């Protein structure tokens, strides 16, 4: 058990590193195109380099804050959310990691996610719907699932990929929109920024589905099954989580604030019908697997 945990951690760190490297190369490539087309010369290249370094630092240290901000999560006050705080504290004792920061988001759909770059800087966020619907054991099961993601550094990889992909999607939309809006004028002065803009937009349009596929590969369904089993092991009780998943499965309305970028973070897909990308295995299957566990 211990040995595989270390393996999981180092694999997640390696994948995050690799992902950031690959994406930095990609960014430098696009930047180079810009510099070349606009004839900014050496200074332009240095600026691009600095930008990429800065960008990586921001992504590594702040993607958890961005993720929390983007879904509108607020810190859960200890006096208002006593039981939630207690459960998080208990499960962190069981998992042997420091107590993560606790957030709530105002959302009826029962759901939860964890984020952060390591167990020392981790946060758990639950929806108000989850708190209303679950009893103590079910809440414990959900928190244990999240704690498992924190302990094996899934949170680092998932958050970083989520934020980077979110950025790409945002960039693509901006470029595409500016192309449609400014298309008429651009056609006349084909050289320079207009042409480059179009090339970049095309590259982004081609690259973003590839990146979404990459997320699928990185955040495989296996990862959720593993967090279910490991979470159940942490609290030595698979039934709390199984029953929580049953309740989550019965709720059929999609979440208001989730986007493609943050969907992979949640314990169950915030969208309904798995339209966008199936980051999560079917709930019935997860419940069946949980119920077959014995410790």
């Amino acid at each position, binding site marked *: 058990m211990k040995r595989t945990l270390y393996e999981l951690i180092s694999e997640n760190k390696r994948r995050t590193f690799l992902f950031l490297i690959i994406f930095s190369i990609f960014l430098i490539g696009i930047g180079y195109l810009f510099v070349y087309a606009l004839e900014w010369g050496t200074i332009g290249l240095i600026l691009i380099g600095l930008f990429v370094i800065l960008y990586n630092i921001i992504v590594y240290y702040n993607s958890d804050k961005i993720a929390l901000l983007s879904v509108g999560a607020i810190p859960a006050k200890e006096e208002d959310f006593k039981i939630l705080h207690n459960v998080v504290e208990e*499960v962190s004792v069981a998992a042997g990691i420091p107590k993560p920061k606790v957030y709530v988001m105002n959302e009826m759909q029962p759901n939860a996610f964890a984020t952060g770059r390591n167990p020392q800087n981790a946060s758990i966020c639950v929806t108000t719907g989850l708190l209303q619907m679950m009893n103590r054991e079910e809440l414990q099961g959900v928190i244990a699932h999240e704690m498992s993601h924190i302990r094996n550094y899934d949170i680092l990889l998932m958050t970083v990929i989520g934020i980077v992909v979110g950025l790409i999607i945002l960039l693509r939309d901006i470029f595409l929109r500016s192309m449609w809006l400014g298309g008429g004028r651009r056609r006349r002065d084909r050289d320079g920024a207009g042409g480059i803009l179009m090339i970049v937009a095309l590259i982004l349009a081609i690259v973003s589905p590839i990146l979404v596929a990459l997320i699928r590969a990185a955040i495989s369904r296996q990862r959720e099954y593993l967090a279910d089993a490991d979470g159940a092991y942490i*609290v030595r009780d698979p039934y709390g989580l199984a029953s929580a998943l049953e309740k989550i499965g019965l709720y059929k309305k999609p979440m208001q604030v989730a986007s493609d970028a943050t969907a992979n973070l949640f314990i169950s897909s915030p969208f309904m019908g798995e339209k966008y990308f199936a980051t999560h295995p079917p709930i019935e299957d997860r419940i069946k697997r949980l119920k077959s566990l014995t410790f």
Partner: protein
Amino acid sequence: MFTWIILLIVAVIVFWFIGTYNMFITLKNRVKNAWAQIDVQLKRRYDLIPNLVETVKGYAKHEREVFEKVTELRTRAMSASGPKEVGEANNMLTGALKTLFAVAENYPELKANENFLKLQEELTNTENKIAFSRQFYNDIVMRYNMSQEKIPANLVAKIMGLTPSEYYPVPEEERGTVKVSF
């Protein structure tokens, strides 16, 4: 040449001894630390119980035996020494508390009392933390005790005068799953 080989062997043995000695010191302290984690929770639990008994008494005067049992077991647990004795007393106390909360189910007014609900949540919290730190404690004790028995480290353990640590007893009905709900 020969003396060098002897010296080398002696050096290897000395380094091995130092390494093993330090390993035992580390493990011993980790056992102590793991026990301290449980102890903190046990103390908190002892502090909460009188309040709970007082609150419940206000609503359910007739359940005297239950109160007496809880109070008596609390005293016994507090005066117990060593993980085994403390653990056994506390496991009995857990049983008595379960009875107390089961009895409380019959008093709707009590169940609506905010103070009672707060105490119930606090006790559930300590209970779960005790159960989870117990897992850690027993895991580390197992490592400590096993290291003392293994050859050749057992020689160092004997020289250091180490004895195996006691396990924190796990209640019969809880073996396998940790699930506490009052």
